[in-house]
């Protein structure tokens, strides 16, 4: 079937014109828009307006920004997926292409699915164009020149023209577009009208020059997005940290982590600053590097503040030594790792789940850290908040592993819940406690049998409070010793402490049907692809159970889950199957062979197909 158009004397006028009957075979609210634009041209704002307009119609949206490591000029793509079910994973099929970048035009055209729509700059060469898509050529440059009066903003506003065209093609009500603009420019109300005018240029152009030739439509929905908000994982984590009581944050800029601390700064200006005195109930320090960032956070954690840093893979590498010190000196600190592809420059704007194994054992020597694995933006908030409780309670670094996809994209989520619990500040002895104990206290003495010892904070006014903090070479009273026995005792206690922690960390979320013999294990942002993959697999008659891992070290529930299944696939976004390895290490030998690995590691957020396809193939021919 050739979708054609007769409009505007375009290249396809010789092809078959769609009959009204064919146009009525509509695809409603289930499509993926991909805008191919130029980085730094203002397209991101246009894409967000479009996203907010569609969300305002009550339709679930899942935007993914695929951007270059560049300030201006390189190609960038924005994928806006719309599904009635609220699928959040990236789609690997493009229904509607907005081709705004001549440099990627031919490549972009190849990504459109058969029967899809191509809205493109009219001036682009269409000599080798595909014949199985519908084209809406629009003279964007000419329209921008003739219709946009604002010289300084013309480049940015030109992007808004395509928002109007998409609105026309998909039938987005003008009221929704208007809402999208007002929402996007909440803090800059002066910008609303010029942007609306630019959208109107595109909207009118479509009305005046085209008739609907494609099957895609958006229609208002109800019941799908009520009570939902659009939040980036880094916004959620920053809010979590704020609600978790962070008072010292030291950081060094790095993509894709920077926006976490930048949001924290913005929220702190609003919620942690005394309007009259200017006093701040938080200090956010931009450090000279990641070593200093973690050093400052550890210094603050040692002195009793709730302290954090946020970084990505290259920063995690630099933090290895200090992480080991904090582990052995038993200093609470929270480290957010918004994973990306690395090392060095790597692909700094591409997502990854490849820091898991490294973060888990970060440091030389025998080291195991608590690692939290948020799978949704809601968990970025909750874990970002609760990480401070875990750090204080277990007196150790706590890593929160998010990633670029989770951290920097907007996700539809239920509103976050206000915390019910008070802070858990852990075992800290006050002056009164020390008086009661008559000074009978040892910093690293395990009096409760859980491996967690009592600490004092600098500034505690008691002669027995002070001790000299150092790495692993110390006895129960924090005195330096090279005693073999004391060293081994301390190592065993630390292992015991982590075992205590393992049982207290967020438990896996298990979703099982009574009869399935096949299971999936995933964590972090892979979750969204698993949700969709399971629906597709179930629809194809292959129900698959699911365990979502939410923390390291690995919970006993993983072994129990594997024991209830014949085959369990660990799906993750790294090349080496890092969690696949960790899962197998945690299993009794007889279960190890049941575990298989599904890996996605091209830097793009994992689509459901990256799970359904290998799983279906391998299940068809069980190993």
């Amino acid at each position, binding site marked *: 079937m050739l979708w054609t158009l007769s409009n505007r004397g375009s290249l396809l006028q010789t092809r078959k014109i769609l009959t009204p009957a064919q146009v009525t075979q509509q695809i409603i609210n289930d499509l993926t828009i991909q805008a191919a634009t130029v980085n730094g041209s203002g397209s991101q704002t246009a894409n967000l307006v479009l996203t907010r307009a569609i969300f305002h119609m009550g339709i679930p949206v899942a935007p993914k920004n695929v951007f270059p490591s560049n300030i201006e000029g390189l190609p960038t793509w924005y994928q806006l997926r719309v599904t009635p079910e609220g699928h959040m994973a990236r789609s690997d099929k493009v229904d509607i292409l907005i081709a705004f970048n001549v440099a990627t035009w031919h490549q972009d055209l190849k990504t459109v699915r058969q029967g899809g729509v191509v809205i493109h700059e009219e001036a682009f060469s269409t000599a080798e164009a595909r014949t199985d898509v519908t084209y809406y050529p629009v003279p964007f440059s000419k329209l921008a020149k003739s219709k946009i009066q604002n010289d300084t903003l013309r480049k940015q506003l030109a992007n808004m023209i395509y928002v109007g065209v998409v609105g026309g093609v998909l039938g987005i009500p003008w009221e929704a577009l208007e809402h999208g603009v007002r929402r996007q420019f909440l803090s800059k109300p002066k910008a609303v009208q010029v942007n609306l005018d630019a959208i109107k240029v595109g909207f009118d152009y479509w009305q005046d020059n085209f008739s609907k030739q494609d099957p895609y439509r958006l229609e208002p929905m109800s019941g799908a997005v009520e009570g939902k908000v659009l939040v980036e994982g880094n916004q959620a984590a920053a809010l979590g940290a704020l609600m978790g009581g962070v008072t010292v944050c030291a950081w060094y800029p790095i993509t894709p982590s920077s926006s976490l601390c930048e949001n924290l700064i913005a929220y702190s200006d609003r919620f942690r600053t005394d309007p009259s005195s200017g006093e701040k109930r938080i200090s956010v320090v931009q450090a000279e590097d990641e070593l200093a960032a973690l050093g*400052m956070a550890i210094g603050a954690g040692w002195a009793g503040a709730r302290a954090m840093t946020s970084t990505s893979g290259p920063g995690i590498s630099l933090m290895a030594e200090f992480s080991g010190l904090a582990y052995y000196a038993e200093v609470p600190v929270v480290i957010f790792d918004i994973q990306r592809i690395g090392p060095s420059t790597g692909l700094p704007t591409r997502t990854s789940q490849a820091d898991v194994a490294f973060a888990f054992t970060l440091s030389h020597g025998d080291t195991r850290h608590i690692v939290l694995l948020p799978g949704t933006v809601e968990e970025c908030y909750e874990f970002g908040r609760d990480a401070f409780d875990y750090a204080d309670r277990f007196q150790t670094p706590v890593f929160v592993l998010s990633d670029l996809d989770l951290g920097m994209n907007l996700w539809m989520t239920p509103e976050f819940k206000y915390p019910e619990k008070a802070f858990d500040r852990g075992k800290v002895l006050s002056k009164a406690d020390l008086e009661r104990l008559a000074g009978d206290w040892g910093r690293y003495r395990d009096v409760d049998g859980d491996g967690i010892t009592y600490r004092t904070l600098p500034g505690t006014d008691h002669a027995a409070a002070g001790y000299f903090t150092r790495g692993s070479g110390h006895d129960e009273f924090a005195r330096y010793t090279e005693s073999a026995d004391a060293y081994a005792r301390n190592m065993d206690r630390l292992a015991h402490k982590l075992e205590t922690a393992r049982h207290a960390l967020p438990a896996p979320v298990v979703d099982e049907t009574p009869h399935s013999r096949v299971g999936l294990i995933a964590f972090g942002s892979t979750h969204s692809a698993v949700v969709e993959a399971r629906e597709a697999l179930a629809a194809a008659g292959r129900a698959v159970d699911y365990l979502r891992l939410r923390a390291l070290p690995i919970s006993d529930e993983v072994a129990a889950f594997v024991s209830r299944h014949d085959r369990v696939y660990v799906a993750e976004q790294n090349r080496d199957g890092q969690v696949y390895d960790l899962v197998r290490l945690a299993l009794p030998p007889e279960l190890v062979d049941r575990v298989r690995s599904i890996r996605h590691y091209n830097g793009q957020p994992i689509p459901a197909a990256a799970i359904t396809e290998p799983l279906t193939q391998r299940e068809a021919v069980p190993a």
Partner: protein
Amino acid sequence: MSATLNRIGLPRDAYKGAATTLCAGCGHNSITNHMIKALYELGVEPHRLAKMSGIGCSSKTPAYFVESAHGFNGVHGRMPSLTTGAQLANRQLIMLGVSGDGDTASIGLGQFMHMIRRNIDCTYIIEDNGTYGLTKGQFSATADLGSVQKKGAVNTFQPIDPCAVALTLGCSFVARSFSGDGKQVVPLIKAAIAHQGTAVIDIISPCVTFNDHDGSTKSYSWVKDHEESIADVSFIPYFEEVQVDYEPGTIRDVRLHDGSHILLKKLGDDHDPTDRRAAIRVIEEGRTAGHLVTGLLYVDTSMQDFATTEHIPDRPLKDLGEEELRLSKEQFAQFMSEFA
């Protein structure tokens, strides 16, 4: 008990620490004693003291004074960042950092410089012997060009002068002294503690094992022969009345934040310790003349320390609770609704 008590009622012994494990005769041990004297005489409350260090011989010394105070032996060259964080968590702490020349001028140069740039309120003592002691005698970055190692190797690189670096960066308190000169070191430490901001004291401290031989510019004999004091330093704490044999024109009085005073009796050429360019010049002239210039090189009491610049309240951040740190339920609901 006949022990003399200081103004907060503590004997000198309350400022002692564990027995040193450094070599007998090490300059660092002298500095430890100077610190004990300074802290005792100032009447620093031990529980408010935070002794910070990195790695090396110098960094072991916080164990050897004020045992009842908290201390943190961090990682090599990174003490400034730990100090920065601790200071932000609790502004009431008196941060006293002890570092060495390797810890400061090699692995830790970056953090040293950024600590100064931020003007963290801390005393930063460099126990400077121009050599790596714990790893048995390699040259450090402060070793002078042409100085000779114990085994005969000659240093072929220009030294980094921590005082010159600190001055160039606008450090608000820069001094140099010699471990054997308690009369100068003790008042400098007191003034550094009273100073609100980063106070760097580079104390030449000969390494008796690896760098105290003819040919070393950081040996006892070399320093004794080449030391040129730019001023005789006295320190009058805020709780003592200023009473000195005041001779106009020969004494300079610098008032510190807490109301205490440093008094500098001019010796030799006039040096104005509030003139940064003069401080750099005096170091350069000393270098040319082959002299080690000691004393208070520079002080600026007007510069805000980091926590003040950052608008950190006097009440320690560590003591804030849910009420002060969390959004209220109403604020939270409003904030969430803004994401719709």
